[in-house]
């Protein structure tokens, strides 16, 4: 039987804009669940990333807003200088808590709270990056029965983040960057397949 998922979370750091520009536009226009992304950026960054990604994607890509409710087929990007958290009721919270792993937003914060909200119905994806953020979060996703995907270190512009993730837990799929979106398209299916 096909596994049902409720959300995909992604964490990415250095090399992120390029990686996301490769991945997000390939997601099918009727992608069946919400996608949440933490990309490390400087605190002064504006919403360039979500604007740029939105221009090249079929899906709506937007900056995540406090208390908005997740919708299938929408890509939410954490705003610079705020952590992004998922509530159990499927709404979003932003916070200015201290940095985690020297980062705000932090991938661990997104992954851990999303894991609490969606348990085994969550897919976690770690992409290129030069630090360790996301490793703990991905381990929690696995402990709660979710699915873990990591970009193959040799296809990553910076391989520290994928390597740290691979060491932290038993990852289900290690894929080169250009195979990740096609894989997710098949795994998740359309919003129509996902009505339950």
């Amino acid at each position: 039987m096909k596994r049902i998922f409720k959300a995909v979370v992604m964490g990415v750091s250095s090399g992120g804009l390029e990686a996301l520009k490769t991945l997000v536009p390939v997601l099918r226009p009727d992608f069946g669940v919400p996608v949440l992304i933490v990309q490390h950026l400087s605190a002064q960054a504006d919403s360039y990333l979500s604007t740029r990604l939105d221009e090249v994607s079929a899906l709506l890509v937007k900056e995540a807003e406090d208390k908005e409710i997740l919708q299938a087929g929408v890509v939410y990007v954490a705003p610079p200088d705020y952590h992004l958290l998922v509530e159990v009721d499927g709404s979003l919270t932003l916070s200015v808590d201290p940095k985690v792993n020297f980062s705000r937003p932090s991938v661990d914060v997104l992954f851990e709270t999303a894991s609490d909200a969606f348990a085994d119905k969550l897919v976690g994806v770690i992409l290129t990056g030069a630090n360790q953020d996301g490793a703990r979060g991905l381990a929690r996703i696995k402990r709660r029965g979710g699915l873990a995907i990591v970009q193959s270190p040799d296809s990553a512009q910076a391989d520290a983040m994928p390597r740290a993730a691979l060491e932290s837990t038993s990852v289900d799929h290690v894929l080169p960057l250009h195979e990740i979106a096609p894989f997710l398209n098949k795994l998740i299916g359309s919003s129509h397949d996902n009505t339950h």
Partner: protein
Amino acid sequence: MNVHPETERIELSLLLEAVHLKYGYDFRNYSMAHLKRRIEHRLSLSGFASISMLQHAVLHDEAMFRIFLQDLSINVSEMFRDPSFYKALRDEILPMLGTYPSFKIWHAGCSAGQEVYSMAILLHEAGMRDRGQIYATDFNRAILKQAQEAAFPLAQLKDYTAKYQQAGGENSFADYYTANNKRALLRPFLKERIFFSEHNLVTDGVFGEMHLVVCRNVLIYFDRELQDRVVGLFVDSLCPGGFLCLGSKESLKFSRHADKFEPVREKEKIFRKRRDA
């Protein structure tokens, strides 16, 4: 330890109930995702195996409760955080405020006063200082005490100075403080006409008619229902045409009170209470 998620949710809500009943602090409508993270942090620091054990400690030991309160009060702040906001205050809002013979400003959730003293500097530079009262409140007693000292780590002053300039500041920022050891002490005149007091936005009411309410990066910690209640408190506090300033990622978009305000500077999250509200 692997606790069942549902069990953990029950433990969390029992803890919040216990804290409310025993100490009167009501966290039941805070963001649960946020609370859970902070509580997990406390469990690992103090070596509690479960939230129930933390609950026991908090109920029987007031010192533990104070630590817990500190854990839940995120005091992260900066002077002139979001310089474009302060620039808008300086260029557009203060001139309008200046048309009142006297005015009152309320900083709700003022943390260690970074925001309050930034405002004091703006008012000083606009020559409006002696006409305005500033009320600065927070529910965290310890941080209010710190705020009254008006001292900040010297290491942060470089960042504050840069932001002051980005916000349109033209004086030498160094004239506003004296360096002492590793601390920057703000000049005493900046503390004039500022009243610090303990006020909990969840449980306390209106305490005066305000012309400007600044509440930045506090509402994001609340759930929607509590956000509505607290914005309601601001509606009741503001005079007709009074200003409300929120954090740069906060909005009234999902608020029950959205129609009582009109945007003045949308991007800077500055609103004005409608005269007919």
